[in-house]
Protein backbone atom coordinates (compact mmCIF):
# COMPACT_ATOMS: atom_id res chain seq x y z
CA UNK A 1 0.00 0.00 0.00
CA UNK A 2 2.62 2.46 1.11
CA UNK A 3 4.71 1.50 -1.91
CA UNK A 4 1.78 2.30 -4.19
CA UNK A 5 1.39 5.73 -2.60
CA UNK A 6 5.09 6.49 -2.73
CA UNK A 7 5.28 5.41 -6.37
CA UNK A 8 2.29 7.56 -7.21
CA UNK A 9 3.83 10.54 -5.41
CA UNK A 10 7.09 10.21 -7.33
CA UNK A 11 5.13 9.90 -10.57
CA UNK A 12 3.02 13.01 -9.96
CA UNK A 13 6.03 15.10 -9.01
CA UNK A 14 8.05 13.71 -11.92
CA UNK A 15 5.36 14.50 -14.50
CA UNK A 16 4.89 17.96 -12.97
CA UNK A 17 8.64 18.57 -13.23
CA UNK A 18 8.48 17.47 -16.85
CA UNK A 19 5.72 19.94 -17.70
CA UNK A 20 7.86 22.81 -16.46
CA UNK A 21 11.15 21.54 -17.92
CA UNK A 22 9.94 20.44 -21.37
CA UNK A 23 11.54 22.40 -24.17
CA UNK A 24 8.55 22.41 -26.47
CA UNK A 25 5.26 23.89 -25.42
CA UNK A 26 3.27 21.00 -26.85
CA UNK A 27 5.03 18.32 -24.84
CA UNK A 28 4.57 20.42 -21.71
CA UNK A 29 0.85 20.47 -22.41
CA UNK A 30 0.76 16.71 -23.01
CA UNK A 31 2.59 16.26 -19.72
CA UNK A 32 -0.04 18.38 -18.02
CA UNK A 33 -2.85 16.16 -19.33
CA UNK A 34 -1.06 13.09 -17.96
CA UNK A 35 -0.56 14.94 -14.70
CA UNK A 36 -4.31 15.58 -14.42
CA UNK A 37 -5.03 11.86 -14.88
CA UNK A 38 -2.55 10.91 -12.16
CA UNK A 39 -3.96 13.55 -9.84
CA UNK A 40 -7.41 11.98 -10.14
CA UNK A 41 -5.93 8.74 -8.80
CA UNK A 42 -4.31 10.62 -5.91
CA UNK A 43 -7.73 12.03 -5.03
CA UNK A 44 -9.21 8.54 -4.97
CA UNK A 45 -6.45 7.55 -2.53
CA UNK A 46 -7.48 10.50 -0.35
CA UNK A 47 -11.04 9.13 -0.19
CA UNK A 48 -12.33 11.95 -2.33
CA UNK A 49 -14.15 10.32 -5.27
CA UNK A 50 -16.21 13.46 -5.91
CA UNK A 51 -13.05 15.52 -6.28
CA UNK A 52 -11.43 12.79 -8.37
CA UNK A 53 -14.37 12.81 -10.75
CA UNK A 54 -14.21 16.60 -11.07
CA UNK A 55 -10.46 16.48 -11.62
CA UNK A 56 -10.81 13.73 -14.24
CA UNK A 57 -13.59 15.53 -16.12
CA UNK A 58 -12.51 19.16 -15.85
CA UNK A 59 -8.87 19.13 -14.75
CA UNK A 60 -7.79 16.58 -17.32
CA UNK A 61 -10.48 16.21 -19.98
CA UNK A 62 -11.87 19.66 -20.70
CA UNK A 63 -8.71 21.56 -19.72
CA UNK A 64 -6.72 19.15 -21.92
CA UNK A 65 -8.74 20.17 -24.98
CA UNK A 66 -8.37 23.86 -24.12
CA UNK A 67 -4.60 23.61 -23.70
CA UNK A 68 -3.90 21.34 -26.67
CA UNK A 69 -5.79 23.66 -29.00
CA UNK A 70 -4.14 26.76 -27.53
CA UNK A 71 -0.64 25.29 -27.82
CA UNK A 72 -1.30 24.26 -31.41
CA UNK A 73 -2.39 27.78 -32.33
CA UNK A 74 0.44 29.48 -30.46
CA UNK A 75 3.06 27.16 -31.94
CA UNK A 76 2.36 28.66 -35.36
CA UNK A 77 3.96 31.89 -34.17
CA UNK A 78 7.70 32.41 -33.75
CA UNK A 79 8.94 31.78 -30.25
CA UNK A 80 11.10 34.62 -29.00
CA UNK A 81 12.08 33.49 -25.56
CA UNK A 82 15.40 34.58 -24.21
CA UNK A 83 16.52 31.95 -21.69
CA UNK A 84 16.21 33.30 -18.14
CA UNK A 85 19.40 34.59 -16.55
CA UNK A 86 21.24 32.53 -13.97
CA UNK A 87 20.53 35.04 -11.23
CA UNK A 88 16.81 34.91 -11.85
CA UNK A 89 16.88 31.12 -11.89
CA UNK A 90 18.72 30.99 -8.59
CA UNK A 91 16.45 33.50 -6.92
CA UNK A 92 13.35 31.69 -8.17
CA UNK A 93 14.71 28.34 -7.01
CA UNK A 94 15.50 29.73 -3.57
CA UNK A 95 12.04 31.24 -3.27
CA UNK A 96 10.34 28.00 -4.40
CA UNK A 97 12.32 25.84 -2.01
CA UNK A 98 11.48 28.22 0.81
CA UNK A 99 7.74 28.24 0.06
CA UNK A 100 7.57 24.45 -0.48
CA UNK A 101 9.55 23.91 2.73
CA UNK A 102 7.22 26.11 4.77
CA UNK A 103 4.21 24.29 3.30
CA UNK A 104 5.72 20.89 4.07
CA UNK A 105 6.43 22.04 7.63
CA UNK A 106 2.83 23.20 7.89
CA UNK A 107 1.67 19.77 6.73
CA UNK A 108 3.76 18.12 9.45
CA UNK A 109 2.48 20.44 12.16
CA UNK A 110 -1.22 20.31 11.36
CA UNK A 111 -3.20 20.39 14.62
CA UNK A 112 -4.00 17.07 16.23
CA UNK A 113 -6.82 16.11 16.56
CA UNK A 114 -7.71 17.65 13.24
CA UNK A 115 -10.50 20.21 13.22
CA UNK A 116 -13.45 18.82 11.34
CA UNK A 117 -16.90 19.89 10.27
CA UNK A 118 -17.86 16.30 9.45
CA UNK A 119 -20.01 15.84 12.59
CA UNK A 120 -21.94 19.01 11.81
CA UNK A 121 -22.35 17.94 8.20
CA UNK A 122 -23.62 14.56 9.33
CA UNK A 123 -26.05 15.93 11.92
CA UNK A 124 -28.19 17.82 9.43
CA UNK A 125 -27.75 15.40 6.53
CA UNK A 126 -31.05 13.65 7.23
CA UNK A 127 -32.89 16.99 7.08
CA UNK A 128 -31.64 17.62 3.55
CA UNK A 129 -32.75 14.18 2.39
CA UNK A 130 -29.38 13.68 0.68
CA UNK A 131 -26.95 10.81 1.08
CA UNK A 132 -23.87 12.49 -0.36
CA UNK A 133 -22.44 14.90 2.22
CA UNK A 134 -20.35 16.74 -0.40
CA UNK A 135 -23.47 17.57 -2.41
CA UNK A 136 -25.16 18.67 0.81
CA UNK A 137 -22.27 21.05 1.55
CA UNK A 138 -22.37 22.42 -2.00
CA UNK A 139 -26.08 23.00 -2.38
CA UNK A 140 -27.36 23.25 1.20
CA UNK A 141 -24.81 24.25 3.84
CA UNK A 142 -22.66 26.51 1.70
CA UNK A 143 -25.21 27.27 -0.99
CA UNK A 144 -24.44 31.00 -1.13
CA UNK A 145 -20.82 30.19 -1.91
CA UNK A 146 -21.78 27.78 -4.69
CA UNK A 147 -24.23 30.29 -6.17
CA UNK A 148 -21.51 32.94 -6.32
CA UNK A 149 -19.19 30.43 -7.94
CA UNK A 150 -21.75 29.97 -10.72
CA UNK A 151 -21.74 33.75 -11.12
CA UNK A 152 -17.95 33.60 -11.49
CA UNK A 153 -18.39 31.14 -14.37
CA UNK A 154 -20.77 33.55 -16.12
CA UNK A 155 -18.30 36.37 -15.57
CA UNK A 156 -15.53 34.25 -17.08
CA UNK A 157 -17.65 33.75 -20.20
CA UNK A 158 -18.26 37.49 -20.39
CA UNK A 159 -14.52 38.02 -19.99
CA UNK A 160 -13.69 35.58 -22.79
CA UNK A 161 -16.25 37.16 -25.10
CA UNK A 162 -15.02 40.66 -24.38
CA UNK A 163 -11.63 39.78 -25.84
CA UNK A 164 -13.26 39.64 -29.28
CA UNK A 165 -12.60 42.39 -31.83
CA UNK A 166 -15.55 44.79 -32.04
CA UNK A 167 -16.47 43.75 -35.56
CA UNK A 168 -17.16 40.17 -34.48
CA UNK A 169 -19.33 41.02 -31.49
CA UNK A 170 -22.47 38.93 -31.55
CA UNK A 171 -20.93 36.43 -33.98
CA UNK A 172 -19.76 32.86 -33.54
CA UNK A 173 -16.58 31.50 -31.97
CA UNK A 174 -14.14 29.77 -34.32
CA UNK A 175 -15.11 26.17 -35.15
CA UNK A 176 -13.60 23.58 -32.83
CA UNK A 177 -12.83 21.09 -35.58
CA UNK A 178 -11.28 20.96 -39.05
CA UNK A 179 -13.36 21.95 -42.10
CA UNK A 180 -13.63 18.34 -43.26
CA UNK A 181 -13.48 16.15 -40.17
CA UNK A 182 -12.39 12.53 -40.42
CA UNK A 183 -15.28 10.09 -40.88
CA UNK A 184 -14.07 8.17 -37.82
CA UNK A 185 -14.38 11.30 -35.69
CA UNK A 186 -17.92 11.92 -36.90
CA UNK A 187 -18.75 8.32 -36.05
CA UNK A 188 -17.25 8.67 -32.57
CA UNK A 189 -19.22 11.85 -31.90
CA UNK A 190 -22.46 10.29 -33.14
CA UNK A 191 -22.09 7.20 -30.94
CA UNK A 192 -20.33 8.59 -27.87
CA UNK A 193 -22.45 11.71 -27.40
CA UNK A 194 -25.79 9.95 -26.69
CA UNK A 195 -24.08 7.50 -24.30
CA UNK A 196 -22.25 10.35 -22.61
CA UNK A 197 -25.43 12.37 -22.21
CA UNK A 198 -27.13 9.46 -20.46
CA UNK A 199 -24.12 8.97 -18.19
CA UNK A 200 -23.86 12.69 -17.46
CA UNK A 201 -27.51 12.94 -16.46
CA UNK A 202 -27.16 9.77 -14.39
CA UNK A 203 -24.12 11.19 -12.60
CA UNK A 204 -26.05 14.33 -11.72
CA UNK A 205 -29.01 12.27 -10.52
CA UNK A 206 -27.10 9.82 -8.34
CA UNK A 207 -25.02 12.74 -7.02
CA UNK A 208 -27.62 13.20 -4.31
CA UNK A 209 -26.54 9.94 -2.69
CA UNK A 210 -23.32 8.74 -4.31
CA UNK A 211 -20.22 10.45 -5.69
CA UNK A 212 -21.29 12.65 -8.56
CA UNK A 213 -23.42 15.77 -8.76
CA UNK A 214 -24.14 18.87 -10.77
CA UNK A 215 -20.51 19.78 -11.48
CA UNK A 216 -19.46 16.33 -12.60
CA UNK A 217 -22.60 15.59 -14.61
CA UNK A 218 -22.51 19.04 -16.18
CA UNK A 219 -18.84 18.64 -17.10
CA UNK A 220 -19.54 15.34 -18.87
CA UNK A 221 -22.45 16.87 -20.78
CA UNK A 222 -20.17 19.77 -21.70
CA UNK A 223 -17.55 17.35 -22.99
CA UNK A 224 -20.18 15.69 -25.19
CA UNK A 225 -21.17 19.08 -26.61
CA UNK A 226 -17.49 19.67 -27.34
CA UNK A 227 -16.97 16.42 -29.20
CA UNK A 228 -20.04 17.10 -31.32
CA UNK A 229 -18.55 20.50 -32.19
CA UNK A 230 -15.12 18.99 -32.88
CA UNK A 231 -16.77 16.66 -35.40
CA UNK A 232 -18.53 19.71 -36.91
CA UNK A 233 -21.93 18.14 -36.42
CA UNK A 234 -22.89 21.46 -34.92
CA UNK A 235 -21.23 24.86 -34.65
CA UNK A 236 -20.53 26.98 -31.58
CA UNK A 237 -23.64 29.16 -31.16
CA UNK A 238 -23.86 32.86 -31.91
CA UNK A 239 -23.12 34.66 -28.69
CA UNK A 240 -26.07 37.03 -29.06
CA UNK A 241 -28.54 34.16 -29.06
CA UNK A 242 -31.19 34.78 -26.42
CA UNK A 243 -31.68 31.12 -25.63
CA UNK A 244 -27.94 30.64 -25.14
CA UNK A 245 -27.75 33.53 -22.70
CA UNK A 246 -30.79 32.25 -20.83
CA UNK A 247 -29.16 28.82 -20.49
CA UNK A 248 -25.96 30.50 -19.27
CA UNK A 249 -27.59 32.32 -16.40
CA UNK A 250 -30.32 29.76 -15.62
CA UNK A 251 -28.24 28.02 -12.93
CA UNK A 252 -27.25 31.01 -10.81
CA UNK A 253 -30.59 32.77 -11.44
CA UNK A 254 -32.74 29.86 -10.24
CA UNK A 255 -30.37 29.38 -7.33
CA UNK A 256 -30.66 33.04 -6.38
CA UNK A 257 -34.46 33.10 -6.71
CA UNK A 258 -34.82 30.06 -4.46
CA UNK A 259 -32.36 31.64 -2.03
CA UNK A 260 -34.31 34.90 -1.97
CA UNK A 261 -37.53 32.98 -1.42
CA UNK A 262 -35.86 31.39 1.62
CA UNK A 263 -36.97 34.07 4.11
CA UNK A 264 -40.60 33.57 3.06
CA UNK A 265 -40.57 29.77 2.92
CA UNK A 266 -38.18 28.78 5.68
CA UNK A 267 -37.39 31.87 7.67
CA UNK A 268 -33.91 32.65 6.43
CA UNK A 269 -31.89 33.57 3.35
CA UNK A 270 -30.95 30.44 1.35
CA UNK A 271 -32.84 28.16 3.74
CA UNK A 272 -34.98 25.33 2.40
CA UNK A 273 -38.38 24.48 3.93
CA UNK A 274 -38.28 21.35 6.07
CA UNK A 275 -39.34 18.20 4.29
CA UNK A 276 -39.11 19.86 0.92
CA UNK A 277 -35.36 20.26 0.79
CA UNK A 278 -34.40 17.41 -1.52
CA UNK A 279 -36.77 18.18 -4.41
CA UNK A 280 -35.75 21.82 -4.20
CA UNK A 281 -32.05 20.90 -4.21
CA UNK A 282 -32.50 18.66 -7.25
CA UNK A 283 -34.48 21.44 -8.96
CA UNK A 284 -31.63 23.91 -8.45
CA UNK A 285 -29.06 21.33 -9.47
CA UNK A 286 -30.91 20.59 -12.70
CA UNK A 287 -30.54 24.19 -13.83
CA UNK A 288 -26.96 24.24 -12.64
CA UNK A 289 -26.19 21.21 -14.81
CA UNK A 290 -27.67 23.06 -17.79
CA UNK A 291 -25.59 26.17 -17.12
CA UNK A 292 -22.37 24.22 -16.61
CA UNK A 293 -22.96 22.14 -19.72
CA UNK A 294 -23.35 25.37 -21.72
CA UNK A 295 -20.61 27.38 -20.00
CA UNK A 296 -17.67 25.00 -20.32
CA UNK A 297 -17.85 24.50 -24.12
CA UNK A 298 -18.22 28.27 -24.56
CA UNK A 299 -15.12 28.84 -22.46
CA UNK A 300 -13.19 26.35 -24.60
CA UNK A 301 -14.55 27.76 -27.87
CA UNK A 302 -13.22 31.21 -27.01
CA UNK A 303 -14.33 34.66 -28.19
CA UNK A 304 -16.43 35.13 -31.33
CA UNK A 305 -14.19 35.34 -34.38
CA UNK A 306 -16.59 35.52 -37.30
CA UNK A 307 -19.87 37.16 -38.04
CA UNK A 308 -21.76 33.95 -38.69
CA UNK A 309 -24.76 35.37 -40.55
CA UNK A 310 -27.55 33.01 -41.31
Amino acid sequence: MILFDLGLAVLVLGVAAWTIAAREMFSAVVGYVAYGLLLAIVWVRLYAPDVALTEAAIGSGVTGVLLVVASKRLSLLPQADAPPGRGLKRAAAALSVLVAGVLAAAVLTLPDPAPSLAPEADRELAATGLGNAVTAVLIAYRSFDTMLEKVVLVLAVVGVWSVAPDRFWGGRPAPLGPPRPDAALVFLARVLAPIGIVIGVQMFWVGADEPGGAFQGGAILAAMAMIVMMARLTEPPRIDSGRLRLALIAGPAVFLVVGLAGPLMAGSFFAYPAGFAKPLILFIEGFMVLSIAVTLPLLVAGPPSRKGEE
Partner: protein
Amino acid sequence: MSVLLGLFSLVAIGAGVFFFVAGTLALLRFPDSLSRLHALTKADNLGLGLVVLGLLPRAGSPLAALKLIVLWAIVQLSSATVAQLIGGALRRQDAAE
Protein backbone atom coordinates in the same frame (compact mmCIF):
# COMPACT_ATOMS: atom_id res chain seq x y z
CA MET B 1 -17.49 -22.77 -7.18
CA SER B 2 -16.20 -19.60 -5.54
CA VAL B 3 -12.69 -21.00 -5.64
CA LEU B 4 -13.09 -21.57 -9.36
CA LEU B 5 -14.40 -18.05 -9.85
CA GLY B 6 -11.52 -16.65 -7.83
CA LEU B 7 -9.08 -18.58 -9.97
CA PHE B 8 -10.81 -17.29 -13.08
CA SER B 9 -10.46 -13.71 -11.79
CA LEU B 10 -6.80 -14.21 -11.05
CA VAL B 11 -6.04 -15.66 -14.46
CA ALA B 12 -7.97 -12.98 -16.34
CA ILE B 13 -6.49 -10.11 -14.36
CA GLY B 14 -3.03 -11.62 -14.68
CA ALA B 15 -3.49 -11.81 -18.45
CA GLY B 16 -4.71 -8.20 -18.45
CA VAL B 17 -1.60 -7.09 -16.58
CA PHE B 18 0.49 -9.00 -19.11
CA PHE B 19 -1.06 -7.09 -21.99
CA PHE B 20 -0.49 -3.76 -20.29
CA VAL B 21 3.15 -4.66 -19.73
CA ALA B 22 3.50 -5.88 -23.30
CA GLY B 23 1.81 -2.78 -24.71
CA THR B 24 4.07 -0.48 -22.72
CA LEU B 25 7.20 -2.39 -23.72
CA ALA B 26 6.13 -2.14 -27.33
CA LEU B 27 5.43 1.57 -26.98
CA LEU B 28 8.94 1.99 -25.66
CA ARG B 29 10.80 -0.42 -27.93
CA PHE B 30 9.07 -0.52 -31.32
CA PRO B 31 10.94 1.41 -34.01
CA ASP B 32 8.28 3.61 -35.62
CA SER B 33 5.06 5.38 -34.74
CA LEU B 34 2.67 3.17 -36.69
CA SER B 35 3.85 -0.07 -35.08
CA ARG B 36 3.76 1.62 -31.69
CA LEU B 37 0.16 2.58 -32.41
CA HIS B 38 -0.60 -1.02 -33.30
CA ALA B 39 0.81 -2.20 -29.97
CA LEU B 40 -0.98 0.49 -28.02
CA THR B 41 -4.42 -0.60 -29.21
CA LYS B 42 -3.72 -4.14 -27.98
CA ALA B 43 -3.06 -2.86 -24.48
CA ASP B 44 -6.10 -0.61 -24.63
CA ASN B 45 -8.52 -3.27 -25.76
CA LEU B 46 -7.24 -6.60 -24.45
CA GLY B 47 -5.58 -5.35 -21.28
CA LEU B 48 -8.58 -3.45 -19.99
CA GLY B 49 -10.98 -6.06 -21.38
CA LEU B 50 -9.32 -8.89 -19.47
CA VAL B 51 -9.17 -6.86 -16.27
CA VAL B 52 -12.89 -6.13 -16.60
CA LEU B 53 -13.57 -9.79 -17.33
CA GLY B 54 -11.67 -10.77 -14.21
CA LEU B 55 -13.58 -8.27 -12.08
CA LEU B 56 -17.02 -9.36 -13.32
CA PRO B 57 -17.44 -12.26 -10.83
CA ARG B 58 -16.57 -9.84 -8.03
CA ALA B 59 -19.17 -7.25 -9.01
CA GLY B 60 -21.78 -6.86 -6.28
CA SER B 61 -24.85 -6.87 -8.50
CA PRO B 62 -25.80 -7.51 -12.13
CA LEU B 63 -26.11 -3.74 -12.57
CA ALA B 64 -22.57 -3.17 -11.31
CA ALA B 65 -21.37 -5.84 -13.74
CA LEU B 66 -23.27 -4.14 -16.56
CA LYS B 67 -21.59 -0.85 -15.63
CA LEU B 68 -18.17 -2.49 -15.99
CA ILE B 69 -19.09 -3.85 -19.41
CA VAL B 70 -20.43 -0.49 -20.57
CA LEU B 71 -17.22 1.13 -19.39
CA TRP B 72 -15.15 -1.31 -21.38
CA ALA B 73 -17.34 -0.79 -24.45
CA ILE B 74 -16.85 2.97 -24.20
CA VAL B 75 -13.08 2.60 -24.00
CA GLN B 76 -13.22 0.21 -26.98
CA LEU B 77 -15.16 2.71 -29.02
CA SER B 78 -13.04 5.72 -28.23
CA SER B 79 -9.65 4.03 -28.31
CA ALA B 80 -10.36 2.34 -31.64
CA THR B 81 -11.50 5.64 -33.11
CA VAL B 82 -8.53 7.52 -31.70
CA ALA B 83 -6.18 4.91 -33.16
CA GLN B 84 -7.80 5.47 -36.53
CA LEU B 85 -7.54 9.25 -36.17
CA ILE B 86 -3.90 9.12 -35.08
CA GLY B 87 -3.08 6.78 -37.96
CA GLY B 88 -4.69 9.22 -40.37
CA ALA B 89 -2.79 12.14 -38.87
CA LEU B 90 0.47 10.19 -39.21
CA ARG B 91 -0.20 9.46 -42.85
CA ARG B 92 -1.01 13.09 -43.62
CA GLN B 93 2.15 14.22 -41.86
CA ASP B 94 4.25 11.70 -43.76
CA ALA B 95 2.68 12.77 -47.04
CA ALA B 96 3.45 16.41 -46.26
CA GLU B 97 7.10 15.70 -45.58
